[in-house]
């Protein structure tokens, strides 16, 4: 039987990917950001899972405004890094797990989560920056990945509650898969940031740190946070944090916190990172 063995959350700021690609990770501005992932890299190298279900959002890269799926599951055998307008990131091709993805698609839709299924998908920094933060710069990624793209660009994103419940359904679906696979769920994006308008540059460290606590210890409360609170308190782009709740729903009721990191700034954004294990 497949099992969910761990979950993690991380920001996916594009400038972090550029710092990796351009060899700037030791520069004074970036060194504190990457230092926060050193523990994670060792942990990840020690126990790579078979598959990561990677929850992220596309940033007008693979999706334009012609079709706007709220939840879209990548069911392909592989996913190319996107050309986001300045050439694709020099990172390995992302290998999918089409068999588990097909199982997830069927299970989740019958469980009343009406996903869009994507057989051709290029993945942008939202997906590849977390891979770089956790696995560095390998020749090939050590794990297969099933992308789960969430619309957080056009309002409204799915509610935090809906995301949390989708996570719970993902857990049920994974546990009903016969093959003995180790599966992680990653929730990416956030934390507080706003990259538009006169209020741009907003960061709310107090709110972010409370959210980190809630994700670990009181996810029901985190799932009840309404959109207007994310928008007012964490900036217009802070609403990406609803994606963390998919990860948290998939880990079950109680978790053990293995690692936590918080840092301001990376470009316009507060960086937040958690590594969690389910406690059965």
């Amino acid at each position, binding site marked *: 039987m497949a099992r969910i063995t761990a979950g993690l959350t991380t920001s996916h700021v594009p400038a972090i990917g550029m710092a990796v690609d351009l060899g700037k990770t030791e520069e004074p501005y970036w060194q504190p950001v990457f230092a926060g992932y050193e523990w994670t890299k060792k942990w990840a190298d020690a126990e790579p899972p078979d598959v990561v279900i990677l929850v992220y959002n596309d940033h007008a890269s693979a999706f*334009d405004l012609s079709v706007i799926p709220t939840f879209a599951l990548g069911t392909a055998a592989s996913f190319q890094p996107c050309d986001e*307008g300045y050439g694709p990131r020099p990172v390995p091709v992302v290998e999918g797990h089409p068999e588990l993805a097909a199982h997830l698609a069927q299970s989740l839709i019958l469980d009343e989560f009406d996903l869009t299924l994507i057989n051709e998908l290029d993945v942008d920094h939202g997906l590849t920056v977390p891979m770089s933060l956790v696995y560095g710069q390998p020749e090939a990624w050590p794990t297969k990945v099933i992308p789960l793209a969430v619309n957080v660009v056009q309002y409204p994103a799915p509610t935090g509650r809906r995301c949390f419940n989708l996570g719970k359904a993902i857990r049920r679906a994974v546990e009903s898969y016969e093959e003995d696979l180790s599966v992680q769920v990653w929730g990416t994006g956030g934390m507080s940031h706003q990259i538009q308008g006169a209020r741009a540059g907003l960061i709310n460290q107090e709110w972010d740190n409370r959210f980190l606590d809630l994700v670990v210890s009181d996810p029901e409360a985190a799932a009840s946070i309404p959109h207007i609170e994310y928008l007012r308190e964490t900036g217009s782009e802070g609403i990406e944090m609803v994606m963390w709740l998919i990860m948290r729903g998939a880990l079950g009721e109680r978790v053990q916190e293995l690692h936590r990191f918080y840092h301001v700034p990376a470009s316009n954004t507060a960086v937040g990172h958690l590594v969690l294990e389910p406690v059965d």
Partner: protein
Amino acid sequence: MVDNSELDDIPGTTVFTAERSRQGYHLNQMCMSLMKAENRDRFHADERAYLDEWPMSEEQKQAVLDRDFQRMLDLGGNVYFLSKIFASDGLSYVQAVSTMTEYTVEEYQAMMLAGGRSPDGWRSKSERPS
């Protein structure tokens, strides 16, 4: 009827609603076209002619020509789409985003290094000096 009064109460913020997405559809799709190098070259060779190929409003075209990002937001643009314009100009997010604020790029970067903009005074239009 959808009530967006709470969204509209957040100062200095344009929430990209379905209605704004409808209004900005061709502006944003034009931005997407700049993902291709050949289109970027044509755009920079003659911006006016390139914009005239799209069924955008005159106000939208002028905002692009003026690189007035706030105006583009007001006319239905979304920053992830608008980023295709400023990336093609060689600007980073920080450089482009800072033009919508009260700060110069250097002041904006200094604010971010000092921990960012505090939400205090920026949660509701009722907190802003008129």
